[in-house]
């Protein structure tokens, strides 16, 4: 039962490794439109954007009237006034003209002071008053004791118990912020809380005076968590059939904390530093004990001790309907009738039955229904704005054969943030070819860098890494490495001491009276000149800490050699390496024709003062940084034996091709390439050409990113923009170092030719795939199986964090307070906030992600239905799907259970000479455009 209730809790682990997932995972078995409404009932959250937001979209042309009509056309129809009005007409008229709602609380003001009915509405309004039917709202039993007691005694139990409960959970789960860890943590939450609170000689907060007695009694009877919870439920007067409802409500009172306890229970390894035994049942037991004691305390204090505790269930939570209610409903009806062009005379012409039907039809078309239709129209417009240009681009420029051999192939992650970098790279170096594959490049591993204390999994969360890879100093640099380690240790000791000492009493006295000038310099410079400070820090770091060259330990000769400590395989065997390289290249449809230089760029993000830093990292690396994956991949692909093996699998890498691994930081726009000392002399010129091109591209890319932050004109050319984003990463005061995945909306699975030369505005995940090379659709199945959950998770998390940032997201970042190194609270004692902060999602457009797969509907459906997870995503419409025929270029859109052909409605694409020309000075979402200098070539 607790399991069932726990299902509804947010499944976000410690924030240091942020993994995007569908916020409403628990509702994924329902169709999207039903799920959001059902969830809004459970969480009290918004299902869609506000009606005002959609209306603004309508006014700005983001939604068109034709979209609204098209959406209404797809709904069931019914005649309302025979021959005069049907449901579709009614709905589209009201949607387009903007039906107003009136609330009982403000209707009188509208009638009196704003003279709503002036000059001629009184007659119609009187008629409406008669038509309104009032339904009595049935009284709801309170969901949990707190609700009932709030009514009964006027005291909110949550306010009594939450401060203590939050503090207890906080110190229990703490991973290293508190100087003095909670005693007895290893014995479990309930036991350690009991050990702490049961002994006497202390004061208890108001209403919780009996807490000690209660815990002592539990200890005497030696109750375990489950017994405690059951007893508490029993004493609170909850009958067994209500247990689940009450438990769910109790857990959802602090969803963040309950959720993290649950996550750490399921997967203790998520705890970044200290593993403490977690159990949701124990959390619940403590919670219920507190609640029980508080409930008794409240009743006694209010002189209601004689009342049984079960009384809370008898207080109905309902609001009596008021006379103004009728006026409000009538006003709504009145407004609708006027929009439909019906006067009082028209109304009386119809017989009473029809009149009532009309009224009830209008009442049924409430705000929720309108928002649903608005949302569908909103997505429809988006879909058209993406697919029409894609189809046109495809028609105009048939992808030809292989063409000339490019001088470099560059692999990027499919991440939509890399889209712009790819485009700019191709703009500045048209003879470069770019590819997109999931950013771990098929190399799922547990990686330990020379500076890392522990290994970290660098692969999608659903994959459990089997192999471990270590970075180690090159043999001739081991001396240097030892020095590095010892210097870093010394630095860590010093920094840790300063950190601790400023917080303690006597050492703090010394450091604040004597050493404060040391703080004044960073304070002033970090605020006034963060960029310079960052550069200074880096320069110092370089001077003081030796930089040994390193290599990777990624090979293994024996088939099975587990490392004793973690049970992983040390590195990869030849066969495994061939598998990985062949898999990645093969899925992308690349089997030959490689350039002389191939770069593999993983990505990640570094920023300061940003608890959500990890949410900007690579999703395909499970919220890690994908540089090592690129490096390992390149090293594997450079091996002669691997290439020989690849040839057997019909992947032909020319002998003169050299792979280079690299890392792209999406926040400060840095690009590093690894192991350059091994690059053969013959490839130096290509390498330097590529570096120049990448440098130019990343500056242009920075310029494109900057346009979102402020009016672009303020940052002029690419050089300044690059400096700006570098500063941004170093700024303590910057709540949006980058926008992360915000604005993501599309995932295009297909050849680069489909999208090359198109300005996709950093909104599209690009997955390289060639249906022609994939006769059995096995590559497609692998790709979609990996890509759909990741992209849909990202897209849905952004959707929900945007539509209700307070409940699904974690609100504004500004009051966030890092707690226990596992999450953020607002202020000193709030729930643990899950989801994304407003600063990350503010520019987002909440649409379900649209997959455009270059294949045929039949082939895609075959793959999708074979995979239950994908089938659920698609069947319940959590994602949208379209296909582009690889041969004819025809576009098919999935609607319901059918595919519908896209009828071309576009003749020309807007075009610009370069991306910069298209986006310069514009901050809003931009339509897809053709970058024509490229297409002219």
């Amino acid at each position: 039962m607790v399991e069932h209730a726990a299902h509804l809790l947010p499944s976000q682990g410690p924030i240091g490794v942020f993994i995007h997932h569908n916020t409403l995972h628990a509702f994924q078995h329902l169709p999207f439109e039903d799920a959001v409404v059902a969830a809004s009932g459970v969480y009290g959250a918004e299902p869609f954007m506000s009606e005002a937001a959609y209306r603004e979209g309508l006014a700005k042309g983001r939604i068109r009237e034709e979209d609204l009509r098209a959406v209404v056309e797809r709904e069931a129809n019914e005649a309302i006034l025979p021959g005069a009005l049907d449901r579709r007409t009614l709905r589209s008229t009201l949607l387009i003209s903007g039906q107003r709602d009136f609330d009982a609380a403000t209707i009188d003001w509208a009638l009196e002071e704003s003279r709503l009915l002036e000059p001629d509405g009184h007659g119609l309004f009187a008629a409406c008053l008669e038509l309104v039917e009032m339904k009595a709202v049935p009284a709801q039993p309170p969901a949990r004791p707190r609700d009932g007691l709030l009514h009964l005694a006027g005291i909110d139990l949550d306010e009594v118990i939450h401060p203590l409960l939050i503090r207890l959970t906080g110190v229990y789960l703490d991973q290293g912020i508190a100087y003095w860890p909670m005693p007895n943590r290893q014995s479990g939450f309930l036991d350690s809380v009991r050990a702490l609170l049961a002994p006497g000689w202390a004061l208890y907060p108001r209403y919780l005076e009996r807490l000690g007695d209660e815990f002592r009694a539990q200890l005497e009877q030696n109750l375990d968590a489950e017994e405690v919870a059951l007893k508490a439920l029993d004493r609170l007067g909850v009958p067994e059939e209500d247990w689940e409802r009450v438990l769910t409500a109790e857990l959802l009172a602090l969803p963040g904390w309950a959720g993290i306890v649950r996550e750490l229970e399921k997967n203790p390894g998520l705890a970044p530093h200290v593993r403490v035994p977690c159990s949701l049942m124990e959390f619940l037991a403590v919670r219920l004990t507190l609640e029980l004691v508080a409930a008794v305390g409240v009743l006694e204090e209010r002189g209601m001790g004689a009342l049984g505790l079960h009384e809370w269930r008898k207080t109905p939570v309902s609001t009596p309907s008021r006379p103004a209610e009728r006026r409000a409903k009538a006003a709504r009806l009145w407004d609708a009738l006027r929009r439909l062009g019906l006067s009082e005379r028209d109304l009386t012409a119809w017989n009473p039955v029809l009149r009532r039907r009309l009224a009830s039809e209008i009442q049924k078309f409430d705000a929720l229904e309108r928002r649903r239709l608005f949302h569908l129209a909103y997505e429809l417009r988006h879909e058209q704005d993406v697919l029409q240009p894609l189809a046109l681009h495809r028609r105009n420029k048939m992808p030809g054969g292989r063409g000339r051999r490019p001088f470099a192939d560059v692999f990027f992650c499919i991440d939509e943030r890399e889209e712009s970098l790819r485009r700019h790279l191709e703009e500045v170096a048209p003879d470069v070819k770019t590819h997109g594959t999931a950013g771990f490049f098929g190399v799922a591993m547990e990686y330990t860098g020379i500076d890392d204390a522990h290994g970290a999994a660098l692969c999608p969360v659903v994959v459990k890494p089997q192999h471990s890879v270590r970075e180690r100093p090159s043999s001739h640099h081991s001396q240097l490495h030892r020095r590095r380690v010892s210097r870093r240790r010394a630095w860590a000791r010093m920094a840790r001491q300063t950190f601790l000492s400023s917080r303690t009493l006597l050492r703090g006295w010394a450091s604040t009276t004597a050493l404060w000038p040391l703080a004044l310099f960073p304070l002033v410079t970090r605020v006034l000149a963060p960029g310079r400070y960052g550069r200074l820090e880096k320069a110092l770091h370089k001077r003081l800490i030796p930089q040994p060259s390193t290599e990777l330990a990624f090979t293994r000769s024996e088939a099975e050699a587990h490392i004793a400590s973690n049970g992983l395989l040390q590195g990869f065997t030849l066969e495994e390496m061939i598998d990985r390289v062949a898999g990645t290249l093969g899925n992308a449809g690349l089997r030959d024709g490689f350039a002389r230089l191939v770069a593999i760029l993983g990505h990640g993000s570094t920023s300061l003062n940003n608890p959500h830093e990890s949410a900007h990292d690579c999703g395909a690396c499970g919220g890690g940084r994908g540089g090592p994956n690129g490096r390992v991949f390149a090293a594997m692909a450079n091996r002669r034996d691997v290439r020989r093996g690849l040839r057997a699998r019909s992947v032909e890498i020319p002998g003169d091709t050299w792979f280079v691994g690299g890392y792209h930081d999406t926040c400060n726009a840095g690009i590093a390439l690894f192991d350059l000392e091994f690059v053969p002399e013959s490839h130096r010129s290509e390498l330097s050409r590529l570096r120049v091109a990448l440098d130019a591209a990343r500056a242009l890319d920075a310029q494109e990113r900057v346009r979102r932050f402020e009016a672009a004109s303020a940052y002029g050319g690419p050089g300044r923009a690059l400096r700006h984003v570098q500063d941004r990463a170093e700024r303590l005061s910057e709540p949006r170092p980058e926008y992360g995945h915000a604005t993501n909306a599309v995932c295009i699975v297909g050849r680069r030719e489909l999208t090359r030369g198109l300005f996709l505005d950093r909104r599209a995940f690009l997955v390289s795939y060639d249906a022609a090379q994939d006769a059995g659709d096995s590559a497609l199945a692998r790709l979609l199986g990996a890509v759909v959950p990741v992209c849909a998770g990202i897209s849905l998390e952004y959707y929900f964090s945007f539509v209700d940032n307070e409940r699904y997201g974690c609100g504004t970042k500004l009051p966030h307070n890092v707690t226990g190194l596992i999450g953020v609270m607002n202020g000193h004692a709030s729930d643990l906030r899950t989801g994304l902060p407003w600063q990350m999602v503010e520019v987002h457009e909440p649409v379900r992600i649209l997959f455009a797969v270059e294949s045929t509907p039949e082939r895609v459906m075959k793959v999708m239905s074979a995979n239950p997870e994908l089938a659920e995503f698609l069947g319940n419409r959590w994602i949208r799907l379209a296909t582009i025929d690889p041969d004819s270029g025809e576009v098919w859109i999935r609607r319901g259970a059918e595919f519908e052909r896209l009828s071309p409605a576009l003749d020309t694409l807007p075009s610009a000479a370069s991306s910069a020309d298209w986006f310069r000075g514009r901050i809003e979402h931009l339509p897809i455009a053709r970058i024509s200098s490229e297409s002219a070539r």
Partner: protein
Amino acid sequence: MPLTPQTFLILAVLAPGCLFLGMGLLWLVGVNPPEKAIARTANATYGFVCLMLCGLVWSMRSAGLTSVSAGTGNWYAVHEFQIPLTLLADRLSVPLMGLTALLSGLVAVFSRRYLHRERGFFRFFLLLHLFAFGSLLVFAAGSVDLLIGGWEIICVSSALLVAFFHERPEPVKSAIRVYATYRGCDIGIMAGAFFLHHWAGSTLYRSVFPGEWPGQSSVMTGGGATLIGLFLLLGAMGKSAQAPFSGWLPRAMEGPTPSSAIFYGAISVHAGAYLMLRAQPLLAASSFASGVVIFIGACSAIHGTMVARASSDVKTSLAYSSISQLGLIFMEIGAGFSWLPLIHITGHAVVRTLQFLKAPSALHEFHGLHAAAGGHLPKTGAHYETALPAGLRSWLYRLALDRGHHDTILDHVVSGPLRKLAQRMTSLENRWRLSPKAPSNEGSHV
């Protein structure tokens, strides 16, 4: 205008106040200036204040003065009861004014980015200016009466900034708590000011504490000095979050990070220490009052450090670390040091501001340190485990976790009884209601 120290002093104090008034008027007439304009005027103003303070120091040095008082005449007066409008710059107030100007300026620069696109951007800067004006006034005031003016301004701007995110209930409730603590403790400072007037005939520092800081003397001695000293201490305890009134400080962390930094790390919490430093001649005249100050300081220091050690979130741990240092500062003041607490205040303000501003980086920094240390950070808090018996340890931990039970004690001693009394009175009142039935709906339609 002549470049006298007086001019510099007055301009420095008035600048943020005028900015506040100007912005308030703009808002009232419906102008909503862009962020850039707001930020630029803020930077310009604090730059100007810093400049004026430099001018002040320069002109004082060139004239060989150690203190300057500006402003003539009475703000208002009823016969012999006069409230003069006098600002005083001496070796105590100038450093603190400088600190205020510098940190307010830095926080203004910081907030321009931090609060970018926030709905309350304008409101934040408005309140920041009000706060800066209030604290400059507190430090520059030449009399206790004028200090109260600045003191109340800090109180109001604090409460409103804690409630900055007023759409969620917790900040609103915390703000009420902060405001209530401030106002409750302010009774002390008001009474102190009254008795100073009553017995010494004036609240001008120049009159009641003749001489130059440090080493002023006091015209009040004996019981009067003790009483006034204790009343002022009450006021100072509220502002500086000394035990047992420290419960509001962690609650004040509901505001945006930069306001937490400047209010509760840097300026606002030190206002109480400043007041004690100002009133040091009184303490010197009364060993009892000094004893109480030392005692309160010691309690707060121990309390603060204990609680800070058991706090698992960054801002609370910083808040209580601040309290422990403030306790030490109070002890230093009570022990009769002058320069030491001044330096301590300055240093503490600087260090804490930086730490608050960096608070959201805790994760980043900890992971960095952890990796650099090779995965093993020295275990903290171990000496508790070795030195204390288990029972005592767990008792102490619980004391720290429940923040010394101070909230509970206050609840039992002050707010609880008051509330209970009020409830009892209300129920008595209701028994005698004029109308037999309780009125149902308030929104009366007449």
